[in-house]
């Protein structure tokens, strides 16, 4: 087969194509085309929005989206040729998906804040729920017992999940035994255990057998199952960042492997390990299903993790949603706000810690 490499017409055609595709160069023409594509469809749809009674979802999905796609395609085609048409479609859809997620996130956050703020008061934060029924007006009763319950369950879960998770990470990065791939695999498989199954497991093993009562401790065990994979995987990432120089340096000083880990590697990774623990807590703090199965609920303030049912925040929200009493529903929103603030605090701490580590 013969190919004419230097066919003149082909070369000039290529030149033309190149001229038509000014990568990254933005001419005035281009800006005008983009501006028209960005402004015209929303204006048309905006007019329809106010002047006609076409239902809004139809307006957005059936009229605006195709209109925007066509406008962008024309703008792209006029500036960069047919190749750019699909690109413009991707850009429009991607921006659409972004706006979609933004709208949902803001809708969720705004509904929590705007509804929850009515419930907030000192009484709500500190009182428990004894003598409170769904119809009791706001201003009486609150999530004090549920906040305590959440703290208790999370602390119990951390007592198990944090040491075991870090030990798992140490096995993978420091001991480097033969089973490393299997351990990694199992941890990942464990991260897929549904929260309701974790609750059922603790229920069968400890509660149905009578070893434990429905209690904070039982719920803590269920939370620990969900928390451990997060802690182990984050801790593994953190320990991997510790330079090998430190390990060899310590070994060269006549240290045993165990001392290298305990006195050099883990202290050097301290902030990262705290981050791992907090991420684990943030992962489980909103889990509801295990609580319903293992801790039930309790209007009283409970301090003993072993002998009686206990309410934590997610369970409090659960029991107040879908009640026919507006005040109960407002309480649910208030508890949701408290929970979201709790999660936000946890995430802020991890961000601050991570930023500090990066700076160093």
């Amino acid at each position: 087969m013969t190919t004419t490499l230097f066919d003149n017409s082909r070369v000039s055609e290529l030149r033309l194509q190149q001229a038509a595709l000014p990568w990254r160069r933005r001419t005035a023409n281009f800006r005008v085309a983009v501006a028209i594509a960005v402004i015209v469809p929303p204006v048309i749809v905006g007019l329809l929005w106010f002047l006609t009674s076409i239902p809004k979802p139809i307006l957005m999905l059936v009229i605006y989206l195709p209109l925007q796609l066509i406008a962008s395609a024309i703008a792209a085609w006029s500036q960069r040729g047919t190749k750019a048409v699909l690109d413009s479609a991707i850009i429009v859809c991607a921006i659409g998906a972004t706006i979609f997620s933004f709208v949902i996130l803001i809708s969720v956050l705004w509904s929590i804040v705007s509804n929850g703020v009515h419930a907030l008061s000192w009484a709500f934060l500190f009182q428990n729920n004894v003598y409170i029924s769904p119809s009791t007006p706001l201003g009486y009763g609150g999530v004090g017992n549920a906040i305590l319950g959440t703290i208790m369950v999370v602390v119990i879960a951390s007592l198990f999940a944090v040491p075991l998770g870090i030990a798992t990470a140490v096995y993978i990065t420091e001991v480097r035994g033969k089973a490393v791939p299997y351990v990694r695999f199992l941890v990942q498989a464990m991260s897929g255990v549904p929260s309701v199954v974790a609750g059922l497991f603790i229920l069968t093993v400890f509660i149905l057998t009578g070893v434990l009562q429905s209690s904070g401790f039982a719920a803590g065990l269920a939370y620990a199952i969900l928390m451990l994979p997060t802690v182990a995987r984050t801790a593994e990432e953190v320990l991997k960042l510790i330079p090998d120089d430190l390990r060899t340096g310590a070994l060269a000083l006549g240290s045993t492997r165990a001392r290298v880990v305990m006195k050099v590697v883990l202290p050097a990774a301290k902030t990262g390990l705290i981050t791992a623990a907090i991420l684990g807590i943030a992962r489980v703090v909103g889990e509801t299903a295990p609580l319903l199965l293992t801790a039930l609920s309790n209007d009283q303030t409970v301090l003993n993790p072993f002998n009686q049912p206990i309410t934590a925040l997610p369970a409090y929200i659960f029991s107040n949603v879908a009640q026919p009493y507006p005040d109960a529903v407002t309480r649910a929103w208030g508890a949701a706000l408290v929970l979201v603030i709790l999660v936000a605090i946890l995430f802020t701490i991890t961000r601050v810690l991570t930023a500090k580590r990066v700076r160093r």
Partner: protein
Amino acid sequence: MSSAEFENIATLEDEFTESPEVTPERQVEMSAHDISIWFNKRKVLEGVNIEFPKRTVTALIGPSGCGKSTFLRTLNRLHELIPGAALAGEIRYEGKDIYAPEVDPVLIRLAIGMVFQKPNPFPSMTIRGNVLAGLKLSGMKRPNHDDIVEETLTAAGLWTEVKDRLNHEAGSLSGGQQQRLVIARALAVNPHVLLMDEPCSALDPASTLKVEETIRQLSKDITIIIVTHNMQQAVRVADYTAFFLAAEGEPGHIVEQGPTTDIFGNPQDQRTLDYVNGRFG
């Protein structure tokens, strides 16, 4: 001491007669006998025989990849931390094979300290904590920690610079200071041998001179084995020099060894002559 070793020393003495530093009383601290080293199936070093007399500085020179750093790491059993590492031959310390099954590598590393290419102070500890880290990590008991800190930091030439901020974090020191800090850290456990793997390659010229001065001072008390790419440095600090070389695709070996003055002033092998004159490597 076995008669074979006496013979070895005798041979050494024959070779070293020109060196004014060599006296008949010199004893061998460490020695390597027919050492070959593998990573998995790849042989990186072959048939190395060398002796390190007590209280001397020996420089290991040679182009990159000739196995000299690997050899250094076999001397205190750090080589075995790499998966797939294997070794043939014997490394003797005080006349005994350090790879014998009953030997605890941890104790070997305690007696044979090491300083690395990049300064590696422990970031979670203070300057003082770093100096004493070896004691803490090895579980060794030595009284008067304050004296140890002052002594070793002085020996490492760092005392005057840091004596007012012993409780600051080690990360606040400059690279050269950090390197001298890890030298002090290595000295605090009282090693008899100090291995140095290109200790100055990450340092500026001023810090390099300070570290070299430290090495000269230390060699009055302990045996030092130093890997260096810097020929002038070898001339400045080392009593003896060994030249390592690896042909393309072959394991490395020692081409020539002897008093530094001989290796640099009157090399017997053409390749040594080329290398010390900077014609390759």
